[in-house]
């Protein structure tokens, strides 16, 4: 059969458009990365990441933003741990205890998908009302609570995706050997370990970059918090606040902080992709 001319032309036009679209996406990615790296590298120094803000920090004197780095790590570390402890049982429950096509599982997945879509500023506002309800001030604890709420849906949905394709035969084999459901959990865990790892990296990346929710709840401070009730600085807020300064030296620090944040997030993302590629091959 002869392919008519117009068909061929529209095929070619479509192809060109698609390539253009891809190039646009690539262009955006490289533009963002290039901007952050070129600006950040100029402002970067060892003092930035190893020192607390000094006396005249906000008028351009010496110091760094170690407070923000440590604050972010505290909040992210704690909430990731709590998030994991809560979400693994839920994922297990959804996939092993409940039968396929169960109403509860459907509803739960829907609920988590919806929670996943709730903007972080709403989490912030909601967390803030909870804190007032319990009489808490802006503190490390508040930040941890809100970030935990924020990442649980991400944890559960990502792990759930990994577990859903889990072959039921393995479960049957395990049960047939006389294992209880709890013992079967071990088998499941080993199978979905890469899924858990990817979910964790994804959540950590989300948690460390989120500014709108910690703005309300964790506050901002120049020192490293020593207890849960003290406010804590975070990297995204360090970028955000310092960028608004009229003093060039302070704005430079915002670029340096942005660079640190980007490098952390890039490392997480690349490791996540690596784990998925590497370990999903060995799955049953």
């Amino acid at each position, binding site marked *: 059969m002869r392919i008519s001319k117009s*068909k061929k032309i529209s*095929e070619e036009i479509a192809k060109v458009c698609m390539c253009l*679209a891809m190039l646009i996406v690539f262009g955006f990615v490289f533009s*963002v990365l290039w901007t952050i790296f070129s600006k950040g590298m100029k402002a970067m120094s060892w003092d930035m990441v190893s020192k607390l803000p000094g006396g005249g920090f906000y008028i351009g004197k010496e110091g760094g933003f170690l407070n923000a780095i440590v604050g972010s790590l505290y909040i992210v570390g704690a909430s990731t741990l709590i998030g994991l402890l809560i979400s693994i049982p*839920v994922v297990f429950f959804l996939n092993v205890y409940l039968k396929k096509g169960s109403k*509860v599982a459907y509803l739960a997945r829907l609920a988590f998908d919806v929670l996943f879509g709730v903007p972080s500023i709403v989490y912030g506002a909601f967390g803030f009302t909870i804190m007032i309800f319990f009489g808490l001030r802006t503190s490390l604890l508040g930040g941890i609570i809100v970030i935990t709420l924020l990442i649980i849906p991400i944890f559960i949905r990502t792990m759930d995706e990994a577990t859903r394709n889990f072959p039921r035969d393995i479960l049957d084999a395990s049960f047939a050997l006389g294992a209880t459901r709890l013992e079967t959990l071990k088998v499941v865990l080993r199978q979905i370990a890469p899924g858990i790892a990817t979910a964790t990296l994804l959540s950590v990346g989300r948690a460390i*970059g989120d500014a709108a929710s910690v703005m309300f709840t964790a506050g901002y401070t120049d020192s490293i918090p020593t207890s849960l009730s003290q406010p804590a600085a975070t990297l995204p807020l360090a970028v*955000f606040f310092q960028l608004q300064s009229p003093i060039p030296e302070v704005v430079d620090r915002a670029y340096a902080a942005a660079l640190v944040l980007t490098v952390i997030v890039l490392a997480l993302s690349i490791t996540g992709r690596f784990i998925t590629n590497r370990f999903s091959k060995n799955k049953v």
Partner: protein
Amino acid sequence: MFSMTIIAILMVVVMFVGLYLKSSPVLQEKSFWQLLSSSEWKPMKGEFGFLPFVAGTLWVTLISILIALPVSLLTAVYITEYAKPYIKRLVFPILDILAALPSVIFGVWGVLVIVPWISQHVAPHFMDFSTGYTVFAAGIVLGVMVIPLLVSLFIEVFSSVSTDLRECSLSLGATRWQTVRKVIFRQTFSGIIAATVLAVSRAMGETIAVLMVCGCVIGIPTGILDPCYPIPALIANNYGEMLSMPMYEAALMFAALILFVVVLFFNLLSRIILYRLEKRLG
């Protein structure tokens, strides 16, 4: 474990109730529609009109989707229908990076690249002077931010079409592009709409990046080169002052409630459509 699952489901309800209770003082004083349709915003006098903020949110979201939708759709089609495996291996990590970058980084990029570009190269054609902090800037930044979400949703939707259907169409002599238009798009039309709605709801809630480039001038924007003040930016900018005035706090919580309800509704709708589609095709 069962109780944990139930608690998680209840979270949605608890969030709604919490925000509603907090915003009830302002709702008692004025009706829902009064709040949304008035454009008087004078917190000190107790005037809370949300129209400028609602309009700002709608403008910014519209522009971002207009930018992101065609680019994402074409990229996703290319990846699922045309790309060879090695191209996929190259593209996915790049999309990962775009998805992983935090909002504040896009904000910095917007301030450094997009805002000066608009102020120096775009705006002079239409007006005397613009700072560049405009609806257009916010729309571009948001558009770039929702591209990875849209692409990954589209890829998921397109890959759910069975290979048989594709091969049928190709064996009838259709070109690939014809197959895409007449088979893939038609089969997944509801999915494309659902994915777009999801992206809209994501764009509506973005805070920090938009806050940094939108200009934050209270007023209803009349064109894409006007500054705007979307709802999330309003909440984030005023969280410090609001504690001193109960009415102000209630008004901001009402803003959060609107955002929550709209996003909730959009999410529910599109997720249910996507689940159905997955079931039908899968």
